[in-house]
């Protein structure tokens, strides 16, 4: 059984989703790559920010 940590799961999810978003939402390879990186950063960044928000709320 594959047992990733929560953060590893976030990284994997962001990698796969941003790959598909980049390819399907833009038309040229350069823009696809840049949009994929942008989506990846937003996925991971928002997960980190929301994690801190939930941590602070729970205290």
């Amino acid at each position, binding site marked *: 059984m594959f047992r990733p940590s929560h953060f590893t799961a976030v990284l994997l999810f962001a990698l796969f989703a941003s*790959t*598909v978003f980049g390819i*399907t939402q833009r038309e040229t390879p350069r823009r696809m790559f840049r949009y994929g990186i942008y989506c990846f950063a937003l996925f991971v960044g928002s997960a980190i920010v929301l994690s801190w928000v939930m941590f602070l709320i729970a205290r």
Partner: protein
Amino acid sequence: MPNKPAAGTSAQQGFVYLPLIAGWLVPGAGHFLLGKWVRGLLLAAAIVLMFALGLAMHGKLYTGAQDILDILGMVGDLGNGALFFVGRLMGLGADPVQVTTADYGSKFIVVAGLLNVIAAVDAHNLRTGRKES
């Protein structure tokens, strides 16, 4: 405004929904049919790996329709096309979710299906010329 035809003569012949259906059944196949080999390979790798990792995490393949969440989960899973049907035939994803990673896995499988639908629609848009390249 009429849609622009996709580049190449093959895009103007044959069954217009073939890339959509092929892309749904086999991840990346719609792009392969249109000669977009690298994109198809990347899409197939992302979707198949996400589905496989979901199963490796002991994620659940939704089959029943007991409540609205199960129905929505099954709709997402069906987006995986042949992967879903083969997985069901092999008895994969049938265990109840008991650990946290299995819940992650179930979500991976659902999202892989939704991403596959997006990829198949992209292939259809390329085929009809709605997306230029």
